[in-house]
């Protein structure tokens, strides 16, 4: 019994030591918050349902509603491709991109600088709703901290994008909850929950790991500069009149 207690105590001490070590590896701002600054490499997530057992973990099957399944099964990028047309990717499609992203964090703001198409988004960290009063491509975000995890809740999307390259749909009623947790000196956990009451029967979650790239600098990326596919007519902008299979007036 004494031996078992000793082993348990040792294991607990070891676990605590590892946890303390990991926690100590997380740099912090002067305000005590974890420092999320830096340029981060991300896995490409063309399908939010899937996992690669390495740095992205999806739910396996998405909980489509009847409307969601119908919309997805009828999606055909050859009939209209918004990303191929260099229109804004929207929040999820931009977060699923393989290109680096730079986070710039202060006491008051958190900025996401996407190398893909050189987009950016600035979020106020005051916890207030800064909804501009119009729906947007990247949505409106309320920021909060849960311990050492930055939680970003985004809604008020214009519904003109899709979740991923595969074309999983989202409605204008989408809410995205993102959780950023810096794990140690070089990695960050990113967890995103998609909550869309029109196209899915319940929320689903996708997780991935970002890796700090200290030797990177962002490089300008103009989607429009040589989009031959669009210029030569092999890609067309979407038919937004038929993008959704529901009437928004039914969900106000």
């Amino acid at each position, binding site marked *: 019994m004494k031996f078992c207690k000793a082993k348990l105590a040792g294991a607990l001490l070891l676990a605590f030591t590892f946890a303390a070590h990991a926690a100590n590896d997380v740099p912090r701002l002067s305000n005590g918050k974890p420092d999320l600054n830096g340029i981060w*490499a991300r*896995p*490409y997530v*063309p*399908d939010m349902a899937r996992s*690669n057992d*390495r*740095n992205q973990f999806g739910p396996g099957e998405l909980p489509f509603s009847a409307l969601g399944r119908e919309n997805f099964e009828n999606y*055909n*990028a*050859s*009939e209209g*491709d918004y*990303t*191929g*047309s*260099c229109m804004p990717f929207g929040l999820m499609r931009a977060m699923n*991109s*393989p*290109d680096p992203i730079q986070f710039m964090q202060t006491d008051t703001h958190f900025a996401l600088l996407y*190398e*893909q198409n050189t987009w950016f988004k600035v979020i106020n960290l005051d916890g207030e709703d800064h909804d501009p009063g119009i729906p947007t491509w990247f949505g409106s975000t309320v920021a909060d901290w849960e311990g050492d995890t930055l939680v970003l809740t985004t809604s008020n999307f214009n519904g003109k994008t899709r979740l991923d*390259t*595969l*074309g999983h749909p989202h409605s204008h009623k989408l809410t995205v909850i993102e959780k950023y947790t810096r794990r140690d000196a*070089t*990695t960050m956990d990113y967890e995103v929950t998609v909550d869309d009451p029109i196209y899915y029967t319940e929320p689903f979650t996708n997780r991935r*790991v970002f*890796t700090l*790239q200290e030797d*990177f600098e962002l*490089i300008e*990326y*103009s*989607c429009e*500069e*040589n*989009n*031959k*596919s669009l210029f*030569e*007519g*092999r*890609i067309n902008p979407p038919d937004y009149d038929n993008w959704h299979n529901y009437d928004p007036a039914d969900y106000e």
Partner: protein
Amino acid sequence: MKYNKLKMTACAAAALACLPLLQANAHHSIAGEFDQEVTIQLKGVLTAFDWANPHLWYYFDVTNANGQVEKWQCTTGTNPNRLLRAGWKKEDLVIGSVVVFDNANPARDSSNTCYTPNIALEDGTRIFSGRREQ
């Protein structure tokens, strides 16, 4: 729907993450523009290429079975930003080289346009793919 798998380089050290050297086209859906149910093999003389975003395009002359020269253009889906980080430079590919596109997918509009994940030189050397060997 088919799409290319993520390829990873070997990690330099345990503390460093593998840098994904993507071969899929994250810009847009490949299947929307190209017929991925069909594959063709192309070989020709490189006359020009666009080192530009959103992805590189290659222009080459293919001599067909009738001895006629066909003008082709193909893309591999990657972009200069990723190639620069992988150690490649625009000067690594020389105009006039014989280039080979294996397992290319033709464009749905039936033009002489294709997509392929890889471009190789005549001797099989992959160019603008993976990390450039020093």
